[in-house]
Structure formats: structure tokens, C-alpha cells
């Protein structure tokens, strides 16, 4: 009984007219939580009622607090007939459950009706009194913080990054229940909204439990999705990264800066005044236990067949094969016609696609042996799955009075499972965390969905408990098990891919599904990486008790509590990696290959790093993460997309699944080829933020890959694209080819200019200097690798090194080349990327515009071919982008960041594309200014750097609790070493520009501010006083809202990025996760499909803003529209749309305001230069 929820209904405004006779409304409000309902009095005859109700109090379990939404219904009282509902407000009270987030929810909420949309607003105040629950076996997980942000949140410091957490909940979809035939669309929609709200609440709670068990206190990079599986139900699933976060107590500590990368850099340097207290961390004392692990036991090797059994749904026939990993189209022998195929592939870095090498069919990526040895651990554990305890199990848990350790042992599978996947949903990391990046790993699997047969749930939606019963019900428990097993299979595959790349972890990990009728494609992808355990232990883990458990060097935090030896397959290797790390300069280290050069999993050109010349790097690198802040880049980046359609025969069930799984590898291959070609065409050598989406429709498959191309200084300059004709003797043909070649060369040159890619020319000899003839060496290696054969020896590069050869042997190939050239660069003044920040731009202004654009296109021609389809799809995407550029032209110069495309195929011949992105204006003039000055500042900056670097070890030794494996002195030496490791000039050009620009920026802002201060001096002084006391945050917030004199509506900014340019996040208020359904039966009257969806999306934005404002926030970061399912029936004049959005509600303070704070000693220490500027 640990919580009391208090709700007060204050007033309403702009209500709709419900009584035609009087043109007024007699409104009252029902407040419902769980099964308890309160009502306000009727406020007669007003469109702006003032209820001013008493406090309605609900006494509830914290479990319910986490699961249930508060439901507020506004009704029109009718004496003679039934009361008419005006609309509802669902409020997720989760943010009130963590001590650090919001304390009260208070504000105006749009009253929402699934048929009519927003109908007026209601003012509500919600509070929660939470009593401490010390019961270790509680089912609630209040206090665990959730962040959508895929990096360590700005005002926190990661003490430990524990690792992967996942969970899923399954239920029947109310839309497909028998009762749906007799209830109104409104009732059905509301049942669905409510169910999903409940399910996500429950999911979050369960994830929270796992987090507590892992001794974390937060989930970062939390990604929740739901799968509408139609008849077979509704799945809500989530993944995230468990962390122990420490709030940086004094936010003003952090020097204000514009670029997020900068901030991240600063975090570890900040001294935590109280390193041992985890402000809201798990209250259970961390015990100093040594667990006895038997890796051999937990890793009992299973035969693949047992795994397959697990993954089978009742209906489908057992497939004779396990999750066999086969790599490319070539291997038909490996595949077999079963619908349960797991198709997967590795998108490998630097796998140069040369069609002349061997044959087309030959796998361009081939691995000799993928470790089949490790099958699902879980297979042996029976059907129990993590977090999905059956009722009896839960009861057992409650009865048990065991220590945490024993509890773990009591549920071994739970324990093991969690350990299984060294995945991180994060895409940006503290500096030094990433040691090496291997490349993209991805896995897909085609599954057949099956109907849930569940007699227990002949649902009455009014009963909140019904679904919980369902979930804990033993006879239903096989359902989530199935889904769990599916995902486990995929994750296992990802893990083994990563291993093949010599990596022990996967970062930037994400999962997605595409469902069409009863076929479902599950996809997962991430970037194989080697992480720095030492960093975790010594850097951020200092002060953490776990550290004192004296683990072996080479121990890695993910495996912290399990000591999974397997994690670091070769201890020798890892230590040698560490050795490498110490000497490799920070700007290029992560691009060095993590895999063994002599035993490469695929053919690749390797060269010595162009930066340090010591280690090998691939010629091209693909990743799913953001560009690391310290990576050295030349020029700007750009959005690169590969688009692909494949026709498929309409088929049923298994035949359908088979044909899809047969198509998948070809699609992956082509998408990869396209990406590679386009990357070359841009003159770049690396892709970041790669996201490949494969969408399945009735009669086609679509693939859309988006990524941000950049030029990494560490990687070799990409060669051009060489076109080779098939009939060399035909003169006209030759001419055509050479014409094409010229066009391509021109495009490359133009792109290089456009994106300012002008790498310094380095003579070949210098590159090769440490070891002679590196190119030959690599060729030798390639010929060793199994796939490449004699053809390799054919050198087609016409003089130019590493030219990329495209053979035009048929019209298809011609089309491909043409399509390469049709991509139009953005108009002048525009840049675009799908990552958080655009390399090469760092002087953002605070002018941002987040938007969503949706297009639905009907393919007109009946006789579609792959070519026309491809062209249509390509045009659709290009036109959409053009349209965006046109619309945002007033923001020039600007950059579209985090451009996120989603493709859906709602019907035959209908393509839906949804784009969400943010346009940020940047200041051209300041960029110029910066580029002029830095030379003279370099020296000063260098010294600053040293100080900053020094601070780190100093901090370390100041912490008495840390038993230092390294002496501080050594650390200093190392740092110094890493400093001198790179030419000073280079360092200055690439690393320090940004920070200098920041300073310039802030300096200019300061001047502006001074001017302001003079104007409104008195106000400013009080403001800075406010700042000093944390209590005054409320004031701050109001102040930070742009002074809109006559408006009571506060501005809420939204962005898919994890930061707001020009502003500083001072507080995270909690996660926003909302699900809405809108339906209409008067489509034409509402302006057709466009009018309908336009209004709905605007409404969704409005509701998100209102919730954030009510929490006391003024911005949403990491905003994402995870789902936008649109269905129409024009003949019936009907349409329906489901939207799921999420993000982090935050309070931001404009940097200009922060800087008004009198110069703080800490700021002066970490940023001496800026402090100097302030005083002068």
C-alpha cells in the first residue's frame, strides 16, 4: 500500500457545445484510476467551467501506480438521456514516481476524443505521496529512471554501464475481439488506447525490476515498440541499456557549450562531491560477494535442433534446421524452403564489392566458420523466460526471504539470459569507451504469426485486472515465450556475428519488425565493437563498490556480475588490445580493425591508418552509431539513402514466408551495393547511423537504408567509380560509357567541393612507411581468404588506386548507374544527416523546427516491374526531400538532423513514407570567423587541453575509495603520450576547432547578454540569485520561456536529438510515451485523408507539449514517432490512424541565461580560457 495519488480538477475551457438548444454545455468530470472513480459536480451551462474540485485521493499499490494511467473523462450531463462523453485525458503518472523528476503534474491538457479529436482543454493537478517500500521482493520498480536518449543524459554521469535489458508483453488486440462487433468505434479505440497504456506501464515496471536486479538505477536508450499482429494479438516490447547514473549535483558546474560532444567530454572531468552516494540508486546494499560461476554450465552447448523447437509456434511445422547463419545469396545450399529460415547477413566494413571478383553469386562476404557452438543458452532452461514469471513463480518469489544472491540462483535462467547479450542501445558514448568499431552486424528472420487461443480472455475491457490475469496465467505464458524465443534467436545471431568480427559487444543496437498479414520479419542490427573495460573500471566506475570486487583486468562491466569468461574470448587478445589502445591516438583508435588481420572474416582492403600509421583500418566503415565526438573528420557529412523494391508473388502463409526469406538476402546485398556506390560518389569513406528497414507488403518488399556519410581522416581516400562496358569493341557504346564515366567523375568532384572534402594529399610512400608495400600485403590477405580467387588478380583500376568498378552488362546495370546520378544534392544552404550532429557544423543557433511529414502514394500501373517500382520509390523519397527543403527554405543556412524515414506498405500498390527530423539553423558568419582565428589560439588551447587532461587523473587519486590499478603518474604519462602521438597541427585543426567555436559563440552571446543586462539590469540580478538556489528552478523555467507577453501557453520545443542547441538541459522530468488512435467516419468533411492526418499529427504534437508543460518542462528531447499506422476506406468515408510517440521531457535553460551566473570557480578550472574571456 505504498502510494497515495491525489487529483484535483480545476477548470475547463473552450469546451464544445453539447446542447444545441442553448449553445452551451453542462460539463462534469470523472476521474478514474484502477477501479476507483470519482466525479466532480456538474458545472451547468458553460463552455469554460470552473469546477475547483476537492482533492480526489486514490490509495494504491506502487505496482498499479506504474502500470495504470490516470484516466480523466469529461462528460456532458444530460437529465433525460445518457451522459455524452466529450473526451478523455490519459495521464501517465510515472514521472512522479522518481525522486528526481517532476513533483507535480499541473496544467492544461487537451481533451481528446478518438472520433472528434481535441475538444477543449482541462486544467488538472496531480500529486503522488509515495511511501518507501523496503520489500525486496516487490513487483514494482519505482525510482528506476527511463531515458529515450541514446547517450548518457546530459546532467548525469555514468557510474556503471551494466548492459542490455529487454522485455515483452503480449495481449489480445481489443480490435479483434468478438465484442468489437457490438461496441462503438469510440469504445473500441478507447479500449485499445487504454490497453496499450497499461501494457507499456507494465512493461516499464518489469524492465525496472530487471534493472534493480542488475543493480542499475536507470535505463538509457529505452526503445519501446508495439507490434500490431492483428488477429494474433498485440505485442509491446522494449529494449534498453541499464546504467547506474549519478546526477551531477551542480548543473552549473558544466561549462555552457554548444556542442553536445563537448558536454560529453566534460562530464567525466567533473568532480562528484559525493562519489559514493548513488542519489536514487538501488537501495539494496551492494554486497561484497564472490559468486561462483561455472561458465561451462551456463554455456552448456545445445544442439541447434533444440533451439528450433523452442522457436516454433504451435501451428508451423518443425523446421529441420537451426538458426543457421548463411551469408549471401550465393549459398542456396545452406538455405532450405522452410518458412522458419533465419536469413542474416553481415554488412561488413570495407568489403569492397567488385563484381569482377569471382562471380556475382559468389558471396562477397563469407565467413569460414561462424560459431555455431553457442546456441541459445535458454534452450536448456525450459520455457521460463526472464521477467515473465508465471503466477506461481511470482508467489514463490514473494514468499522467499532470500538474499539477492539466492534469488538469483533461484531463477537461473533469468540470470543467465540477461547476461547473454552484450548489447548497448546507446549510440553515443563517453570518450574512450569505444576502443574499436568492427562494422555493422544485422540479422533478420521471417516468422509466421499465429492466433492466440486464450479462453481466459473473453475480455471485458472495463476490468483492469483481466489482462494481468492473462499475462500471469500459465496457459497463456507460452505466447510471450514464443516471441521471446524469436528475439533470443536473432540476438544470438547478432552476438555471433559480432564475435566473428573479433568484437565482444554490439553498440547502437536496435530491433524492429515489419508485419503483413500473418508474416512478420524480425530485424535486429547494431555495430560490433570492442569497448574499453579499463575505462569502465577506472574511469567512470570509480567510487563504485563493484570495483572493489577486485576483478581481473580484462574483466568487462557488462559481465560484471557473472564473470563471463567467454566475454573476452581471448584474454591475451584483450590485453593486447588494451596495449594498442594506450598508444593509439584518440582520434582514430576506434576505426582500427578489431579483427585479426590474418584471419579476416571477409575480404577487405586494409591499409595503415592515415592518422597514426600504426594500425590497420578498413577502406570503408559502416556503423549504426553516431559519429564519436573525438573522431577526426574532413568536411561535412551528408544523408545517404539506398532505396530498393522487389516484387513478390502473392502467397499464403508458409509459401509466402519462404518467398520472402528467399528474397531477403538479395535485397540486403543490393542495398549494400547501393550504399557503397553512393558513398563513393560522395567521395566519402564511412557511414554512421546506418538504419536498414525492410518492409513487407502483400506483393512487394521494400528496403530503405539511411545513413550519414562522412570522410574520416583515418581511413583511406576512396577511389572513384570506374565503369566498364561489356563490349569493348563497339565504338558508340564505348563513347556512351566514357560519357557516363565523365558524368560520374564530375559528380564526385562536385560532391567533394560541396561537402568540403579536401584531404591533404599524402604520398603513398609515407603511408606505407612502417611496413613496405601494404597494398600488396592486403591483396595477399585477400587471396588467402576463401572467397576470393584468381579473378582478384585482375587489376582493373585504371591508374587510379582502389577504383571501384561498375560493370554495365545489361540494362539493369545501366539503370543502376543512372539512378546513382539522379540523386540531387540538397539546395545551397542545406545539409542533411540522420545522426545527432552534422560533422563540420558546430555553430548552431537556437532556431529549431521539428516536423513530421507523411506521404502515401498509390502506384498506378498494374504491370509493375522491379525497375519501375524502384524508380517510383526513388522519386517518392527524392520528392519528399525536395519538398522539405522547399518548405524550410526560410531557415537557410540550416541542417536537417536526425532525418528518420519509415516505410510502410498498408495495402497493395500503396506506399507510405513517414519522415521525422529537425531542422536547425546555423550561423555561417561565425563559422568563417572561427576558421580564421584558430591558428593563433592553438597554443593556448593546447595548454588548456593539457590541464583538462590532467584533471582526470587528479580526480582519480582524490577519491580515497578507489584502489588504483594504475598510479596517477602513469596516467599522466599516458595522456601526455597520447598527446604527442599526433602531430600538433592536426590535432588543432580537427579537434579544437569545435571547442573554440563554442567559446566564440558563448563569448558573443555573452556580449549580447551584457547588452541585455544593461537594459533590464534589475531583473537579471535577481535571476542570477535564483540560480544559486536549486529551489528556484520553477522561476527559472518560467523565465526561460520566451517572453510571450499576451500568451499563457508556454513554448515547448521538440527535437529528435538528445539536446537543444543553444540551451542546457538542467533536469530530466521523465519519459513521455503516448499512444493515440484517431478515427473518422466523415473523411471527406474533414478534408480527406490529408486533412485528417494533418489534424491528427498536429493534435499529437499538442498533447505531447501539454504533458511536458504540465510536468514543468519546456522541451522534449530524443522525440521519436515510433509508429504511424494509417488505414483508410474512402468508399465508406472512413479512416483510422494509430500513432505512438515517445521522448524525454526536460527543462532546458538557454545558455545565455546560464552564463549570467557569476563565474564559478569550477567553470574557471575546466575552462580557463572562457573564464578569461568573461573577465576581460
Amino acid at each position, binding site marked *: 500500500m505504498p502510494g497515495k495519488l491525489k487529483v484535483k480538477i480545476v477548470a475547463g475551457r473552450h469546451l464544445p457545445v453539447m446542447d444545441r438548444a442553448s449553445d452551451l454545455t453542462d460539463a462534469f468530470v470523472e476521474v478514474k484510476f484502477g477501479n476507483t472513480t470519482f466525479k466532480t459536480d456538474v458545472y451547468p451551462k458553460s463552455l469554460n467551467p470552473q469546477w475547483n474540485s476537492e482533492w480526489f485521493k486514490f490509495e494504491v499499490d506502487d505496482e498499479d501506480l506504474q502500470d495504470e494511467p490516470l484516466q480523466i473523462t469529461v462528460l456532458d450531463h444530460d437529465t433525460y438521456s445518457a451522459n455524452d462523453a466529450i473526451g478523455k485525458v490519459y495521464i501517465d503518472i510515472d514521472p512522479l514516481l522518481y525522486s528526481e523528476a517532476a513533483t507535480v503534474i499541473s496544467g492544461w491538457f487537451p481533451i481528446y476524443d478518438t472520433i472528434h479529436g481535441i475538444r477543449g482543454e482541462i486544467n488538472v493537478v496531480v500529486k503522488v505521496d509515495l511511501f518507501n517500500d523496503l520489500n525486496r521482493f516487490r513487483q514494482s520498480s519505482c525510482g528506476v529512471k527511463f531515458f529515450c536518449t541514446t547517450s548518457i543524459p546530459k546532467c548525469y554521469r555514468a557510474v556503471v554501464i551494466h548492459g542490455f535489458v529487454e522485455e515483452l508483453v503480449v495481449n489480445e488486440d481489443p480490435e479483434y475481439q468478438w465484442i468489437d462487433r457490438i461496441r462503438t468505434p469510440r469504445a473500441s479505440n478507447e479500449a485499445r488506447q487504454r490497453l496499450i497504456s497499461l501494457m507499456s506501464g507494465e512493461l516499464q515496471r518489469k524492465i525496472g525490476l530487471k534493472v534493480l536486479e542488475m543493480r542499475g538505477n536507470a535505463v538509457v536508450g529505452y526503445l519501446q515498440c508495439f507490434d500490431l499482429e492483428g488477429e494474433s494479438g498485440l505485442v509491446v516490447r522494449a529494449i534498453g541499456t541499464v546504467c547506474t547514473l549519478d546526477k551531477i549535483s551542480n548543473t552549473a558546474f558544466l561549462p555552457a557549450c554548444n556542442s553536445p560532444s563537448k558536454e560529453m567530454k566534460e562530464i567525466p572531468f567533473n568532480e562528484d562531491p559525493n562519489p559514493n552516494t548513488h542519489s536514487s540508486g538501488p537501495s539494496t546494499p551492494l554486497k561484497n560477494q564472490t559468486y561462483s560461476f561455472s561458465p561451462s554450465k551456463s554455456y552448456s552447448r545445445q544442439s541447434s535442433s533444440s533451439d528450433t523447437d523452442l522457436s516454433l509456434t504451435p501451428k508451423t511445422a518443425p523446421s529441420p534446421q537451426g538458426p543457421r547463419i548463411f551469408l549471401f545469396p550465393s549459398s542456396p545450399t545452406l538455405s532450405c524452403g522452410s518458412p522458419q529460415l533465419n536469413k542474416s547477413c553481415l554488412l561488413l566494413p570495407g568489403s569492397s564489392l567488385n563484381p569482377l571478383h569471382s562471380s556475382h553469386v559468389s558471396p562477397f562476404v563469407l565467413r569460414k566458420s561462424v560459431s555455431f557452438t553457442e546456441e541459445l543458452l535458454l534452450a536448456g532452461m525450459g520455457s521460463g523466460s526472464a521477467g515473465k514469471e508465471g503466477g506461481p513463480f511470482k508467489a514463490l518469489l514473494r514468499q522467499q526471504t532470500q538474499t539477492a544472491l539466492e534469488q538469483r540462483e533461484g531463477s537461473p535462467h533469468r540470470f543467465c539470459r540477461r547476461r547473454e547479450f552484450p548489447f548497448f542501445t546507446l549510440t553515443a558514448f563517453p570518450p574512450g569507451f569505444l576502443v574499436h568499431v568492427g562494422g555493422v552486424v544485422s540479422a533478420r528472420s521471417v516468422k509466421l504469426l499465429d492466433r492466440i487461443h486464450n479462453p481466459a480472455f473473453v475480455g471485458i475491457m472495463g476490468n483492469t485486472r483481466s489482462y494481468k490475469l492473462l499475462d500471469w496465467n500459465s496457459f497463456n505464458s507460452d505466447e510471450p515465450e514464443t516471441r521471446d524465443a524469436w528475439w533470443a534467436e536473432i540476438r544470438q545471431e547478432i552476438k555471433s556475428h559480432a564475435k566473428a568480427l573479433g568484437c565482444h559487444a554490439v553498440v547502437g543496437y536496435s530491433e524492429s519488425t515489419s508485419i503483413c498479414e500473418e508474416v512478420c520479419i524480425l530485424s535486429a542490427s547494431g555495430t560490433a565493437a570492442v569497448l574499453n573495460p579499463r575505462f569502465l573500471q577506472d574511469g567512470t566506475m570509480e567510487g563504485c563498490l563493484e570495483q572493489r570486487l577486485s576483478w581481473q583486468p580484462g574483466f568487462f562491466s557488462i559481465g560484471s556480475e557473472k564473470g563471463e569468461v567467454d566475454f573476452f574470448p581471448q584474454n591475451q587478445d584483450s590485453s593486447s588490445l588494451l596495449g594498442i589502445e594506450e598508444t593509439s591516438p584518440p582520434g582514430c583508435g576506434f576505426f582500427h580493425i578489431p579483427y585479426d588481420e590474418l584471419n579476416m572474416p571477409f575480404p577487405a582492403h586494409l591499409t595503415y591508418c592515415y592518422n597514426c600509421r600504426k594500425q590497420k583500418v578498413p577502406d570503408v566503415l559502416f556503423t549504426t552509431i553516431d559519429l564519436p565526438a573525438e573522431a577526426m573528420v574532413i568536411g561535412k557529412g551528408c544523408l545517404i539513402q539506398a532505396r530498393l523494391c522487389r516484387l513478390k508473388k502473392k502467397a499464403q502463409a508458409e509459401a509466402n514466408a519462404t518467398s520472402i526469406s528467399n528474397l531477403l538476402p538479395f535485397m540486403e546485398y543490393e542495398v549494400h551495393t547501393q550504399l557503397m556506390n553512393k558513398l563513393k560518389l560522395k567521395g566519402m569513406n564511412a557511414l554512421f547511423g546506418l538504419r536498414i528497414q525492410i518492409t513487407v507488403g502483400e506483393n512487394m518488399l521494400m528496403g530503405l537504408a539511411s545513413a550519414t556519410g562522412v570522410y574520416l581522416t583515418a581511413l583511406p581516400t576512396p577511389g572513384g567509380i570506374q565503369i566498364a562496358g561489356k563490349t569493348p569493341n563497339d565504338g558508340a557504346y564505348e563513347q556512351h560509357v566514357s560519357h557516363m564515366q565523365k558524368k560520374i567523375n564530375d559528380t564526385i568532384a562536385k560532391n567533394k567541393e560541396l561537402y568540403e572534402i579536401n584531404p591533404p594529399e599524402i604520398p603513398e610512400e609515407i603511408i606505407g612507411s612502417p611496413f613496405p608495400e601494404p597494398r600488396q600485403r592486403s591483396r595477399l590477405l585477400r587471396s588467402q581468404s576463401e572467397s576470393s580467387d584468381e579473378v582478384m588478380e585482375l587489376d582493373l583500376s585504371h591508374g587510379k588506386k582502389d577504383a571501384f568498378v561498375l560493370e554495365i552488362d545489361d540494362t539493369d546495370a545501366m539503370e543502376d548507374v543512372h539512378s546513382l546520378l539522379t540523386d540531387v544534392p540538397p539546395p545551397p544552404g542545406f545539409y542533411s544527416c540522420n545522426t545527432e550532429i552534422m560533422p563540420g557544423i558546430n555553430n548552431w543557433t537556437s532556431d529549431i523546427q521539428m516536423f513530421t511529414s507523411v506521404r*502515401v*502514394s*498509390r502506384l498506378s500501373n498494374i504491370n509493375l516491374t522491379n525497375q519501375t517500382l524502384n524508380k517510383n520509390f526513388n522519386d517518392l523519397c527524392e*520528392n519528399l526531400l525536395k519538398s522539405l527543403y522547399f518548405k524550410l527554405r526560410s531557415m537557410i543556412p540550416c541542417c536537417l538532423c536526425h532525418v528518420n524515414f519509415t516505410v510502410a506498405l498498408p495495402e497493395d500498390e500503396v506506399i507510405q513514407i513517414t519522415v521525422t527530423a529537425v531542422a536547425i539553423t546555423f550561423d555561417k558568419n561565425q563559422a568563417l570567423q572561427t576558421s580564421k582565428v584558430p591558428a593563433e589560439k592553438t597554443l593556448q588551447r593546447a595548454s588548456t587541453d593539457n590541464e583538462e587532461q590532467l584533471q582526470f587523473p587528479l580526480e582519480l587519486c582524490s577519491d580515497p575509495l578507489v584502489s588504483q590499478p594504475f598510479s596517477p603518474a602513469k596516467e599522466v604519462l599516458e595522456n601526455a603520450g597520447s598527446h604527442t602521438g599526433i602531430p600538433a597541427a592536426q590535432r588543432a585543426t580537427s579537434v579544437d576547432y569545435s571547442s573554440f567555436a563554442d567559446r566564440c559563440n558563448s563569448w558573443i552571446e555573452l556580449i549580447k547578454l551584457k547588452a541585455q543586462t544593461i537594459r533590464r539590469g534589475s531583473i537579471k540580478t535577481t535571476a542570477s540569485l535564483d540560480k544559486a538556489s536549486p529551489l528556484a528552478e520553477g522561476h527559472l523555467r518560467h523565465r526561460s520561456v520566451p517572453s510571450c507577453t499576451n500568451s499563457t*501557453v508556454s513554448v515547448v520545443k521538440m527535437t529528435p536529438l538528445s539536446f537543444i542547441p543553444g540551451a542546457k538541459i538542467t533536469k530530466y522530468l521523465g519519459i513521455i510515451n503516448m499512444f493515440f488512435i484517431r478515427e473518422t467516419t466523415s473523411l471527406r468533411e474533414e478534408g480527406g485523408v490529408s486533412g485528417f*492526418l494533418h*489534424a491528427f499529427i498536429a493534435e499529437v504534437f499538442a498533447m505531447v507539449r501539454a504533458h511536458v508543460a504540465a510536468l514543468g518542462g519546456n522541451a522534449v528531447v530524443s522525440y521519436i514517432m515510433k509508429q504511424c499506422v494509417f488505414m483508410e476506406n474512402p468508399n465508406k468515408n472512413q479512416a483510422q490512424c494509430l500513432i505512438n510517440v515517445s521522448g524525454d521531457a526536460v527543462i532546458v535553460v538557454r545558455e545565455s541565461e546560464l552564463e549570467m551566473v557569476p563565474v564559478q570557480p569550477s567553470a574557471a578550472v575546466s575552462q580557463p580560457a572562457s573564464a578569461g574571456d568573461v573577465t576581460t
Partner: protein
Amino acid sequence: MTNDLDIFVGNTTLIDEEVYQLWLDGYSVSDAVSLRLRSGILEQTGATVDVLQSDTMDHYRTFHMLERLLHTPSKLIHQLHFQIPPSRQAMLIERYYAFDEAFVREVLGKKLSKGTKKDLDDVSTKTSITLKSCRRQFDNFKRVFKVVEEMRGSLVENIQQHFLLSDRLARDYAAIVFFANSRFETGKKKLQFLTFEDFAYCAEQMIQNWTLGAVDSNVDDMDVDLDKEFLQELKELKVLIADKDLLDLHKSLVCTSLRGKISVYNEMEANFKNLSRALVNMASKLIHTKDVRDFFIDLVEKFIEPCKSDKWTLNDVRLFLTQYTTSAHNLDAFRHQALWDRYMSTIKSCLLKMYHD
């Protein structure tokens, strides 16, 4: 391949002022697209017609959704549906309530009724303003009229408060409401040379001096209706023309002081009695609603036209009216000095404003 659905929604509602104006002017999407094409926007931005079409559609949809809120601008300010910076909100409102000179001259003083609305297609043909735009402007007039008609307090302030308009636009609306309420005739051919600004000025003068609000600031309709008591009293001024001695004395006083100063002295002297009679007669008749309606026609027919035919300059008129008003104070037998001033100051302002080509 056709786009069934094509939308763009920004967190901050994107508003293109140029498209907004086209929408306000009542152009259809296709007309708006071709107008934008002509402005050369494609050359500037390198976009295609499709892009322009989709952009225009998007804006039109947004405006359509905003229109409901624009009817009650206070709602626009407080609503949560569209996030629009305050300066943009003000722009939206101001432009929405802005009207065309040509249109307002057609409707000014007419009853804002359904009948008038039906005639708007004629107005549209005559003014070559689209019917859609005419309707919007007419509905704006009517909406403002309905809201402030029965309200206490200053007309201008009420309009400003309820419709959040700029001071200038609020004053214009006050004039429109005032004219519509008293149904002043402004459409006659003889009045065609007068601009809306002339009328608005006159309305302002009349509101300031002749309404109830001029004497008592705490009554209903204070700025909308003319002060009935005042109109009743105006009959008393008749003495100025009825009493022959008084009329002669008045004339001689005016003539003496104007000799040598006015360029049309002889004409003035000859016409004095006619002009004086016209002005005083108008005053005495204002109690009748019909004569109030004809107020401007009377001013033109009985004063402005005679003067114009004698080629009076504006300065002549000013000198004459000033002298004519002040001289009355020197008539010992004339006791209604305050009333005279209240009447004449407004008449003088109006006439001076209206005395142009």
C-alpha cells in the same frame, strides 16, 4: 503514381505569409499555385511545380484549421493545438481581420444582414475581389459587430480586447460598427469621392463628441449610439437662422473678421445665409433616423458642393468654419454655446476631412 496523402506538420506551425495572403484573398489552390509560379519562386529555389503544389496545399490546410480559431482570436492565443510564436499569432489575426478598401466602401453603413451577404456576389464582380474574400470580410464585420454592439465601455478598446487587433485596425472596425449601427448612407454616387479613411475619421469624431460615451463613460452602447438628448437639443440651434437679426449679426461678424483673409470673400458673403441655414437645419433634423442616415449626403450636397462650385480652397473652408463657429459666441442673444461647440467642432472636422477631390 499519385500522392493520395501528402502532409507536413511542424512542431512550430509553419506559416508562409505569402501563401496566407493568397488564401485570404480567396484564391483556390490551383490559382494560388499559378500566382506563386509567376512570382518566380521556382527559379529562386530550384523547386518543381509538384513541390509548390504540395506546399500550397499544406498551407491551405493549416489555414483552414486555423480559421476556426481566428474567429475568436483569444482562443488562438490560448489554444494548445498549434504552437505559433506570439508575433506570428498577431500577424495571423491582423491579416485575417484586414479588409480591402474597395470592399469596405461597398458595405460601409449597410445593415450587416443576410440580405447584404446575398448581394456580395455583386460586390465581388464590382470590386474584382473574390467572393470568398468578400465573405470573409463581411463575416468579420458582422462578427465584430455582434460581439461589441451591446457592450459597455470604449468601442475601440472592446474591439481590441476581444479581437486582439492593432490600434489602427481596431479604430477602423469601430468606424465600421458605428456606421453599420446608424446605417449612414455612404454608397450614393455623390459620395464616391470619399475614402474609407474619410469616413473612419468622421466616425471617430462623432463617437468622441456625439455619442453617450462623450458625456458619460459608464453606459451601455455608449460609443455606438448617438446621444439622443443631444440630438433633441440640437433643435435649439434653429434660432441662429430663424431669428433674422441674429443671422445678420452672425454674418456681419464673420464677414468682418474674414475680410482680406479669405480668397473667396464675395462668394462667401453672398452664400453665407445659405450655408448657415444648411448647417443649422441639418442639426435640427438629426433627431430623425432618416436624416442621420443622410448626414453625409447633406454635408456634401448642402455645403461641400456649393463651396466647390465657388472654388473655395481648403484653407478658405477652414477659415470660414473656424470664424463661423467662434463668432457665434459673440452673439449675446445666443445661449447654447456648449451645444453649439459640441455640434460644430465635429461638423468642422468632418467637413475639413471630406473637402477634397
